[in-house]
């Protein structure tokens, strides 16, 4: 099954070409050029990984990360940024990002991280289903 990814960046040229490269690797890509648009899309659809730029106008990547994790805690957010400070990376990881990559990134490295994020999300979703099933079984008198 193809991984479903949301790519978020205010650099439209980057967004376009990166989406095309991912698509050629069999990844289903949606794009958003702002954090607000990304949050709206993530509310409507589920993604295996959300790749977010750290520095964006109006709402930055860390704010978006907080909102995405609040709305959907199972979200697997990878930060991809030109803002190369370790402090920001640590802050992002503390807020629940699963990975942090610096631009320019290696597409193969990013693809591997997407696959790992997909596997992790599948495990979380399966666990959630299992817990729901257990709860149903324990409350019903079958």
């Amino acid at each position: 099954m193809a991984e479903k990814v949301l790519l978020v960046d205010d650099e439209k040229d980057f967004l376009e070409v990166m989406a095309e490269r991912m698509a050629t690797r069999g990844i289903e890509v949606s794009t958003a050029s702002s954090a607000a648009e990304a949050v709206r899309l993530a509310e409507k659809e589920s993604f295996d990984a959300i790749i977010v730029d750290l520095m964006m106008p109006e709402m930055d990547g860390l704010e978006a990360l907080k909102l995405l994790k609040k709305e959907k805690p199972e979200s697997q957010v990878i930060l991809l940024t030109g803002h190369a400070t370790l402090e920001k990376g640590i802050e992002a990881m503390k807020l629940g990002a699963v990975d942090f990559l610096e631009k320019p990134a290696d597409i193969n490295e990013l693809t591997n991280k997407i696959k790992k994020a997909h596997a992790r999300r599948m495990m979380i979703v399966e666990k959630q289903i299992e817990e729901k099933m257990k709860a149903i079984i324990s409350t019903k008198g079958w």
Partner: protein
Amino acid sequence: MKTTVRKQDDQGLRFFGQVIASVTHDIKNSLATINENAGLLTDHAAMAARGRPLDPEKVNVLAMRIMDQVKRADGLLKNMNRFAHSVDDSLKKVDLNEILQLLAALSVRFAAMSGANLDVQPSPKPVVIETSPFGLLNTLFLCLEVAMTAAGQGGSICLRPEKTDNGACVHFGPLPDAAMSNQDHCLSAFIDARLVKNSATRTLTLIIHDL
């Protein structure tokens, strides 16, 4: 006295760091776009090697995108180089028209982050003053930060230089009425200048005296 000098040095360094961090961030964005376009070219080459015909128009589009980004990165580096040379002379004759264009170019990301649009309206004639180029840029940047905060999201700030008898001034505005009333005068320790507000024209004006 020592404390004042230390504060000026700290502020100057902070400004230098802010500008360099912002410009290098944009250069990295440009490099990332070049990297992905070049990567897409290699993807198409690999597909062509497997028998899929190569579309010359696609190759052309990707090459053009790379050239556009090289031009963009070159512009960013030219501005950063001009900025770095602003510390070469502690006193120099500068044209405010050129300095404001440089300031606007260096502040594009800061403006985008605060949601403001910058518009430099140069004077038809050069507005020459003798001052510290770096101190002037730093002072103008501090004023611009005040103006951007006052303008808020979606605000547009016009930067207009004007020659005066003993120096020059730069007008920032128009700014929202409500924001104007909250602005305190911002005094500069770097050059002989002061920031005043004009509620009638809804502008902040930096008055600069020749050093």
